[in-house]
């Protein structure tokens, strides 16, 4: 359980995040935490809630709000992913998501920098492990794999070693002195992202890293409902261990997708960001109650 000092800092942290988005003209929204269908995404094990599932992310509903006419929206919410437990993972965690209409992922990278600099100017104590001054590092997945693994991401995928190499060789090198954006992922690793117009083999997806810690995942949204449907079918096919009942095509979402011209959206792990601000080493140290604090 957090001590009083950290509990107050955590409250100030959430308030400052909200203040930043309000000042930028974003609307704070809330969407259903219990969802009847799964987000078609392999590698996420859902937490069932009777005949629904607890959200692994609010993204489908946030995008439907864009289709409904929202321009800039954000949300702070708890998300749930079964079996994820470690220094940087909790089964229940706080996510920040924000979405912009008529924008692409480069706007989101700018938002990330402005948000974290805003937090630095408002929060004290501030133990962030890297400097925020100067241009933040930007590296494509292709460049990073060549540099740290001496192979292309495509070769790593072929050998089924992409995730392994990313975790063991690439991530520890990212954001060591200054925050870093790893961007332009192979298309198959970005099921809801738009292909890059000048290089359609990669998707306009990026991750923000600070001191080797992955903080956020953002992309230019895929807005073609037909392509999205086939991507979802591929993802569902990979989700072999999941309960079948949640694996229905989200038709209302796909229908709404037609109404979005272009948009960009991002999810940021707020517990991780707060951990870095506190100078902490694991999420358990910075959440109000860690799993070990709960009566079992």
């Amino acid at each position, binding site marked *: 359980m957090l001590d009083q000092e950290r509990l107050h800092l955590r409250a100030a942290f959430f308030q400052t995040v909200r203040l930043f988005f309000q000042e930028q003209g974003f609307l704070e929204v809330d969407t259903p935490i219990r969802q009847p269908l799964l987000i078609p995404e392999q*590698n996420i094990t859902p937490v069932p809630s009777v005949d629904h599932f607890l959200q692994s992310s609010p993204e489908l509903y946030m995008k439907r709000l864009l289709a409904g006419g929202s321009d800039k929206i954000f949300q702070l919410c708890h998300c749930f992913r079964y079996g994820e437990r470690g220094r940087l993972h909790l089964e229940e965690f706080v996510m920040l998501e924000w979405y912009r209409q008529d924008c692409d992922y480069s706007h989101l990278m700018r938002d990330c920098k402005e948000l974290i600099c805003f937090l630095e100017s408002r929060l004290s104590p501030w133990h962030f492990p890297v400097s925020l001054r100067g241009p933040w590092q930007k590296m494509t997945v292709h460049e990073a794999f060549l540099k740290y693994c001496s192979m292309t991401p495509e070769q790593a995928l072929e050998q089924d070693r992409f995730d392994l190499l990313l975790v063991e060789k690439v991530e520890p090198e990212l954001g060591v002195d200054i925050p870093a954006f790893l961007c332009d992922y192979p298309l198959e690793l970005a*099921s809801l992202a738009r292909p890059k117009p000048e290089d359609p083999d990669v998707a306009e997806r990026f991750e923000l890293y600070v001191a080797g810690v992955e903080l956020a995942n953002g992309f230019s949204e895929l807005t073609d409902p037909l392509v999205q449907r086939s991507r979802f079918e591929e993802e569902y096919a990979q989700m072999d261990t999941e309960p079948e009942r949640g694996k229905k095509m989200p038709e209302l979402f796909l229908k709404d997708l037609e109404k979005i011209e272009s948009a960009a959206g991002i999810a940021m792990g707020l517990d991780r960001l707060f951990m870095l601000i506190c100078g902490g080493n694991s999420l358990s140290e910075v959440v109000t109650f860690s799993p070990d604090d709960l009566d079992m």
Partner: protein
Amino acid sequence: MFSASDLRKGLKIQIDGQPYIITHFEFSKPGKGQSLYRCKMRNMITGNQFSQTYRSNEKFEKPALEERKMQYLYNQGDEYHFMDTENYEQTFITKEQLGDNVYFLQDNMELDVLFFDEKPIDVTLPIFVNLVVTVAEPWAKGDTSGNDTKPVTVETGYVLQVPPFVVEGDKIQIDTRTGDYVTRVKE
């Protein structure tokens, strides 16, 4: 059987017929990626260390480990003989397997012996043992080296640093986890 999601620090698993204990563990999962279970392990027989990263679908056998209460009897060359205090069965462990533990064994000492596949592989000693000092140089007055300890040898042949007041024939307490001097024991 264990699955990858059971892996954690301190868990004992069997790989290629050998028992391993996990000494470091970290769960990783890159954004949109697979769960990865990163382990550092020590072979419980050879002491060799190695690192390995596993994925969700891996399975591990549980090693057949058993701890038994035993009494140390005697040594014959490099063979150290122990007796099970419940069924009086005797077994021996080699000097090599015991490592530095041989220095702290005393006749009739009770301790825990770890068995793998019915073969003894390790012993857990009492935390403190009392041993008699057999060789101690007198404290050289005017020693300018600045050291406030001196080396002595105890009955088992073990050499350690002790305070200058310890003399030959004293009984001293030693912490078996570190091998360090704790105190002089009055009889």
